[in-house]
């Protein structure tokens, strides 16, 4: 059974989102999703731009497969995890901490609040 920490919010496309305060939110890939993908070997970020909800924020290349990850709500990317450039497997090793993907900013918290809770996400993935 995958680790799904309380206190985070979750998307249907298997990102976790954490409220950092100051209208900033950290995002990453859930433990469940990285297990499904296998060893991630490359991460691609379009950059510090504005994104509409559902737009592609970046791509993850694993040994056998590739997946995009998406803006969970309208937001602007303000930080990207540059450590993943050299060590993309951090996403596999530590998906909720060192393997974070981006920090985004939004003034409207309603998008965040409507994401799934840990309990809802657990049910969603059927574990």
């Amino acid at each position: 059974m995958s680790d799904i920490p309380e206190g985070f919010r979750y998307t249907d496309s298997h990102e976790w989102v954490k409220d950092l305060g100051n209208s900033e939110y950290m995002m990453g890939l859930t433990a469940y999703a990285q297990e499904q993908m296998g060893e991630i070997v490359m991460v691609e970020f379009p950059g510090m731009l504005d994104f509409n909800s559902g737009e592609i924020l970046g791509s993850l290349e694993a040994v056998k497969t590739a997946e995009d990850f998406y803006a969970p709500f309208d937001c602007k990317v303000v930080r990207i995890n540059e450590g993943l450039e050299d060590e993309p497997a951090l996403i596999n090793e530590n998906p909720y901490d060192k393997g974070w993907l981006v920090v985004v900013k939004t003034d409207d918290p309603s998008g965040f609040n409507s994401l799934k809770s840990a309990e809802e996400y657990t049910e969603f993935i059927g574990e």
Partner: protein
Amino acid sequence: MDKKTALHDKHVNLGARMESFAGHIMPIKYTTVKEEHNAVRNGVGIFDLSHMGEFRVKGKDASRFLDYILTNDSDVEPGKAYYSTMCYPDGGIVDDLIVYRLSEDEYLIIVNASNIEKDWAWVNNHTAGYSIDLTNESDETALVAIQGPDAEKVAQKLTDENLKKMDYYTHTSGVFAGKKALIARTGYTGEDGFEIYIVSEDAEAVWDAVMEAGAKFDIKPVGLGARDTLRLEVGYLLYGNDMDHTTTPIEAKLGWVVKLKTDKDFIGREVMARQKQEKPARYIVGLEVLGKGFPRHGAELFEGDRKVGVVTSGSLAPALGHGVCLAFVEKGFHKTGTELEAEVRGKRIPVKTVKLPFYKDGSRK
């Protein structure tokens, strides 16, 4: 039902990720593909390749038989090995394989695991008129490979054969780790290395001995994941990905294993001779990815709106830090330096044709 190799329990105990591959349950990786890849490039790694197939061809017509069913020339000295394709009459490739000449009238052929049954049927269908004995020893034979710049130092601890005197693509029958073995200086990694063929009963003892002898060199077990990135980085083709029954050796730039310069007849000769003269309509090329990401098998290649090819293998090259691919492209787009675009999930990624191998610093002799 997938077959287990004689080393199955070793892999499980090492915590390997096991997956089904070519009818066998095989270790994909033990730690990470990157770490295992780097161990072989910079030190030494050990592989279980017991899924590969072994056919023995023995008899007074062995050489003549192999000359007919294989594209390369069987006329090598005993103790030497050669790489070859085996083709259909239309030039399509049945399989690619390694042949060890054991003596004047005896050869051992190593075929891809995914093709064992097909190849066995094919060779048996062509024995009429040849005085030979064929045996399929695939299930009874284990193969442990030791690959990397430190491979000789590790292997030498386990045999009295003078490995320093063995050239690349030679082999010898001897004792290895106390067991009767065929010791071959061959591999699929671009590095120096050995492939040790033993009976399955001896596999665990040989594996343990190699791990122990390699401890000082920080030897790492290496799975099929890194085997794939290692071979791609040096531009080695993989049957089923980069070539199959729809491609000929000439298109796959394997003309060097087709004995058109001799007057020997072999299956597919006519088609290949014509293709060599007229030049094929497409070629396999190496592509360096100029952007981020990497196209994979099946990704289409474009120049502007025109589709000019398809990617056959693609991966991040761990030793180079960027994506690399093998691809079939139309004649005219195959020249080194041609810039194309690969379509990946709706996006275009710039790529450029480059000379193979991608990775040029291998320790292979």
